[in-house]
């Protein structure tokens, strides 16, 4: 063959990098060094002597830790190879992690934070030396207050679930402050609200009541009213729910909660579809939170660090966690939490690099841009939904014929019934095309689920490619099901056996444990 080049086939001929790297411990060579530590100065040694030899009995480690011994380049190479074996959002059309709001984390923000002016700041420095950091925290909180409509916002928490914990901790403190701590022992949530709402409430000592939707998949107001009582501490709901359905009666939900003296907590982790459209406070919520690492464009870091933003009404403001950044004229200072504050959730001011990223992200977009984010995320979602629903065997349970906000929980139930191929298998096979998805949180209320959330970051061409891949895999499920069942084929590793992972006798959570449990395998 020679030029011209033939047209590309319908589906990308993808193969993920495969380096077949061993476990790092197997790369060790005695005596190699990865990085050297500065030497103890002679003057210091002369003064203090041999500090290890003079440790109290038993305090000096007897056998050195069996860390690998490797030259610097080999460590680097190992991890670079592993990195190529990972499908970051920058690399793929990452619409398959629905509820996770995988959006573009702009590279300029990475560059902006990469300065000792931020990375080498200690949180207890003289505030006069930290005016830049403090001003950015303050400004970001104020912008999020405007975006949520809440009175005050704190960026102290380190993730969405931590923010949910802060929400329930504030609610608990609030009721206790009002003498109702003992009475209000229940928290109500919905099955399509994120599980951390239920779980954090439980961890805070509450009994959890979980409501299921009505037949159309809408949150069930009547069920809520039945569940509410003077025992209710709060409702904790996500909206739009994981289904991408916006609760049209959200104001009535909040009012009903308030009517029994309960508070209303809004999980807005993912507010991507409603930025500039509607606000938590306008629906009457007392507390809410954003996942800054979702809605506000900070990278997900392979699973964190994230950042939570807790927004509260004036009544709840005294309960906010952590130290607060306060403006005095054109200076900024740090104020420790007041007497009613729930105190620190974590150290200092939260995940500061994320706060600066989020600040830059909002500043790059402004009001018009945030609205364009929401509108485009929603347009993309409804466009993708149209494409997915054209695939035989795929469906979008609930709210039939209606639009969704920013995501949809779909189902392969039809396809599964026809072919026996599960949603999980389809997702794995999709990875052979450089795409992937996750199914959803358990329990699988939607059978054979998969949840797609295209956000604003992907072009139409990319959404089309994604839908084409799912259509192709669905076709394979019917025509060549073995190909799907034995997937992946073009991936770093092949079908993996998860049978040992639930067996305490056999699981291997560290190399240490593995060597102990499988002494003959050492050197594998």
């Amino acid at each position, binding site marked *: 063959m020679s030029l011209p080049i033939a047209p590309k086939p319908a589906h990308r001929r993808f193969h993920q990098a495969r380096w077949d790297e061993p476990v790092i411990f197997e790369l060790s060579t005695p005596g190699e060094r990865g990085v050297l530590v500065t030497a103890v100065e002679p003057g210091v040694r002369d003064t203090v002597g041999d500090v*290890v030899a003079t440790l109290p009995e038993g305090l000096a480690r007897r056998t050195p830790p069996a860390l690998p011994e490797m030259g610097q380049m080999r460590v680097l190479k190992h991890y670079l190879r592993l990195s190529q074996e990972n499908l970051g959002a920058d690399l793929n059309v990452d619409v398959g992690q629905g509820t996770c709001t995988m959006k573009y984390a702009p590279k*300029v923000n990475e560059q902006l934070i990469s300065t000792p002016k931020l990375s080498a700041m200690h949180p207890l420095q003289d505030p006069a030396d930290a005016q830049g950091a403090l001003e950015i925290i303050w400004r970001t909180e104020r912008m999020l207050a405007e975006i949520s409509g809440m009175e005050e916002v704190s960026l102290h928490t380190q993730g969405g679930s931590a923010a949910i914990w802060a929400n329930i901790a504030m609610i608990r403190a609030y009721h206790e402050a009002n003498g109702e701590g003992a009475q209000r022992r229940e928290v109500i949530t919905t099955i399509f609200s994120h599980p951390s709402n239920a779980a954090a409430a439980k961890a805070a000592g509450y009994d959890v009541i979980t409501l299921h939707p009505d037949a159309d998949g809408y949150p069930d107001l009547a069920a809520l009213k039945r569940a509410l009582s003077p025992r209710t501490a709060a409702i904790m709901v996500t909206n739009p729910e994981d289904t991408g359905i916006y609760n049209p009666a959200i104001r009535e939900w909040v009012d009903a909660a308030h009517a029994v003296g309960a508070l209303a907590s809004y999980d807005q982790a993912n507010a991507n579809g409603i930025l500039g459209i509607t606000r938590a406070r306008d629906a009457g919520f007392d507390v809410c939170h954003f996942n800054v690492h979702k809605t506000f464009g900070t990278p997900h870091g392979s699973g964190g660090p994230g950042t939570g933003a807790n927004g509260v009404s004036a009544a709840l403001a005294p309960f906010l966690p952590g130290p607060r950044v306060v403006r005095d004229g054109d200076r900024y200072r740090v104020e420790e939490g007041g007497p009613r504050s729930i105190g620190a959730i974590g150290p200092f001011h939260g995940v500061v690099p994320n706060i600066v990223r989020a600040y830059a992200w909002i500043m790059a977009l402004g009001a018009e841009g945030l609205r364009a984010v929401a509108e485009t995320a929603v347009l993309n979602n409804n466009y993708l939904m149209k494409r997915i629903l054209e695939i035989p065997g795929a469906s979008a349970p609930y709210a039939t014929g209606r639009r969704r906000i920013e995501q949809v929980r779909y189902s392969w139930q039809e396809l599964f019934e026809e072919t026996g191929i599960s949603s999980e298998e389809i997702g794995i096979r999709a990875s052979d095309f450089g795409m992937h998805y996750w199914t959803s949180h358990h329990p699988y209320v939607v059978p054979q689920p998969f949840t797609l959330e295209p956000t604003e970051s992907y072009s139409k061409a990319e959404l089309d490619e994604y839908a084409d891949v799912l259509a192709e895999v669905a076709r394979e499920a019917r025509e060549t099901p073995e190909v799907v069942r034995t997937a992946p084929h073009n991936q770093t590793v092949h079908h993996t056996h998860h049978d040992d992972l639930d067996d305490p006798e056999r699981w291997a959570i560290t190399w240490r444990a593995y060597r102990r449990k499988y002494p003959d395998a050492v050197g594998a």
Partner: protein
Amino acid sequence: MSEPFVHPYIPNTAPEVRAEMLAAVGAASVEEFYADVPADLRLGRALDLPEPLVAEQDLARHVSGLLARNVPTTERLSFLGQGTYAHHVPAVVDEVIGRSEFLTAYAGEPYEDHGRFQALWQYQSLMGELLAMDVVNVPTYDGFQATGTALAMAGRMTGRRRVLVASDVLPAKLSKVRDYVRVHLDLETVPPVDGTADVAGITDRLGGDVAAVWIETPSRTGAVEHRLQAIADAAHAVGAILVVGTDPVGYGVLTPPAEQGADIVCGDIQSLGLHQWYGGAHGGFIAVHDDPRFVMEMPSRLFGLATTDVPGEVGFGDVAYDRTSFAHREEGKEWVGTAAALWGIAAGVHLALMGPQGMRDLGEVLLARTAYAQRALGAIPGIRLTDGAVHLREFAIDVAGAGLTASGVVDALRAEGIEPGVPAGEHELVVCVTELTSQRDIDRLAAAVTGLVAASAAEAAATLDTVATPEEHRA
């Protein structure tokens, strides 16, 4: 701003494509998608936000301009610690966690995200070697959370309420832990003696209703606990669990708590390859022995090794996923969410680079510099070390004898570009040195404090004079 609004971050703001997509879904405008949002909840106006900086160069100038107002520890002489520490971060660590593939990934499967699984499993394993423990979690938020969870685990396992807090703990950490567990557990303080735990006091307070003894080592003031085994034995004798909160930075030279009876070891990984980030880069580890009673109480994800269809291929997966709130909502253990995976990868790379010898060298430098700084400051008239324990990295001085207050020392030395430490009470100052603090740096601090003490003494003498000869004044 251009009309129509097209933004580099939002490809489908391009008008032609937008129109095409609307047509494809049969919508006249995006308004239709919001049919479920009631009119009275609609904002109906533009958000009141600052003018955007849509051109990257304008954004960069603005944000860099704000950050330029910071004066970092690289431009000050800093002896600040108390939870966040200035350690050297090898460049390879930053390179690895800066890779797009790790930085922007999230929660893919063990196939397309094999690299993440392996990197985090290796983190678990490298920490396991350092701590001499068989099970380590994918990091939670920070040492505060790790400790709260460790104690909560102990509570669930024992069904008891009492926790003996036998070390000096950072106030913010104590506040977090207390609020976190207070529905389930009661914390009782057993005051330390000469910096470390009062073994007799602990033994006295132990009983069949004690869920856990909580030791911090190094303590709030950097004191290293040296009687762990005795405490462990006492706790175990009544069926209590020994929870040790620690900073792993010293275990290249120090005996890990697991070898002295600790059941749960927890703490923060910021010292292992993370920059200070104004206190914004923490990760929490929880380590236990390979005992399902403990493992099944852990809320975090735990990655495990697995085989694949291809012999010799290293695969991974979630161990005992049913523990988690992802699997069972409120029936899971506490909760799990986006926490600190990237920092875990960083800490793993750091440990791989350091190796056994690097961690040993580091531990030794820290011990040596700490001891040196203690002597240098302790030798100043009127300055007193608060205890006689072995210290790692931090120690406290009492400045009362020099007629000074801790905040007075801070104010005075800041004027010389020195952050001398963190005040803890009126006269106590907690001073921190790391491998980045050279002998010269310490000498400079000692000289500055000496100068201050002398000035204070002179002033005191002057005042004394004044007081001594009131006649003069009247003259």
